[in-house]
């Protein structure tokens, strides 16, 4: 009997939870705020779903209902992606500067 592909996705999911568990425990507490902002940014990879939705136009109608929801989702996710990565960058740059100034 063939294994349902769902099982493979479930395997990825479960294993990733474990990877996440160990990786996050190794994050130094002083970087917990950047951790939150960067997880925020990467969870916005949901934008791939939004792009598929936006470009799946039915019979050439680029403003079908599902596309419009896709456009909205793209905007929201893009705010998060740019905002999340940039603000993380900004914070991490501050941690870096200190070390150098001190020396």
């Amino acid at each position: 009997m063939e294994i349902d592909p769902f099982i493979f996705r479930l395997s990825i999911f479960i294993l990733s939870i474990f990877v996440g568990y160990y990786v996050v425990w190794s994050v130094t507490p002083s970087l917990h705020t950047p951790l939150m902002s960067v997880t925020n940014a990467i969870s916005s990879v949901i934008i791939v779903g939004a792009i598929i939705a936006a470009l799946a136009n039915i019979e050439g109608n680029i403003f079908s209902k599902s596309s419009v929801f896709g456009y909205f989702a793209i905007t929201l996710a893009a705010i998060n992606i740019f905002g999340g990565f940039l603000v993380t960058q900004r914070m991490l740059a501050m941690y870096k500067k200190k070390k150098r100034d001190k020396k």
Partner: protein
Amino acid sequence: MISANLSAIFYLISGVLFILALRGLSSPETSRQGNFFGIIGMIIAITVTFLAVGNFSTGLIYVFIFLLVGGGIGAFIAYKIPMTAMPELVAGFHSLVGLAAVFVAISAFINPSAFNLGSPGNIKLASLIEMSIGAAVGAITFSGSVIAFLKLQGIMSGAPITFKGQHILNALILISIIVLTYFLCATQSSNLFWILIGISFLIGFLLIIPIGGADMPVVISMLNSYSGWAAAGIGFTLENSALIITGALVGSSGAILSYIMCKGMNRSFFNVILGGFGATEQSKSNQGKEQKPVKSGNADDAAFLMKNASSVIIVPGYGMAVAQAQHALREMVDALKKLDVKVSYAIHPVAGRMPGHMNVLLAEANVPYDEVFELEEINNDFANADVAYVIGANDVTNPVAKTDPQSPIYGMPVLDVEKCKSVLFVKRSLSAGYAGIDNDLFYRDNTLMLFADAKKMTEEIIKSL
């Protein structure tokens, strides 16, 4: 344009890059590189999606327009936001992830063929379940984060909002979500789908209103976790490994942070979620309050004490963030260092309004991160230090957590500030902290209260040094 298999491999690569992004945060040196990996991962995921869809009609122009509009707004916020407003920003961002998940789920529901999920009214059962989970968790994340944002921003009072039968109502709503999902799968009715989303918005709102302002570190971490699970739910629907991996990473990350925060307050997760903390004890402490003698001093006394000390430990708290005192604090420390005083910073896990909040503020004020220590690292040093300078912290220094089993904060790990030779406590008044209890420390012989705004007092001390 490119085959489904090839794009799946690219999604896997971006998933791995996201793991490396989090891995980089294990130390400040590697963290920037980690963030860079994250950005690359995101670029790969987005590019592959465009190629996989392979639709280069005029719709693509709109996609780019919305991408740029969102990106511009995001970049603008990222550069403008003051570091003290980080908790609000993160809460706001969570709400956007949640809402985006809801929108994607809606699109998939109205146009399932675009995602290879069947046709409207005849969506594959597994996909429908995954979609419902993604939409429901996304909606909860959205409305919950909006409330958290309003509370942090001070637009909404931080006081817990409780009413009779609250928990029963919430339980009923949660059960109804499960029942609705069942009927939705059985009937494929779009009305049920909309009701499901509506109810999920409602429960997100109801779940967060009873939680008080100082429990926000837990709430934000929890919503962080939810946003991950929502993304994972959508990832299953879209059969996209990048989304599944990321969702799992973010979900477990948020869960771990919530756990760390709960442990920092010695409270169970359920105790925080059920809410109402701080409301009941408040009245109790006011009744039993007796006037005890307090020693208070001014900036000159404080400057004198610190000047003659050989080591000083600074204990910052949320009050420092409110007063924006971190820069003044750093100047004071610089002045002390010139006088050969050894200075370090002690950070309690729940100081501030989100995990790591104090560390970011100190980093912003150019405090080297190797002078900043966590509770376990520094707690033994208080006994050997001459002066503890408590600025904007309160409950996290309260010795009753160690001595009085009756106290609501009993068992909470606290900084052993009272073991210092002398304690300088900057505070505006003798009022109780968030937990609503009196701080024993105020009345100790070795405590000198400095009644003033944190920033003003610190500036005055600099002048007297």
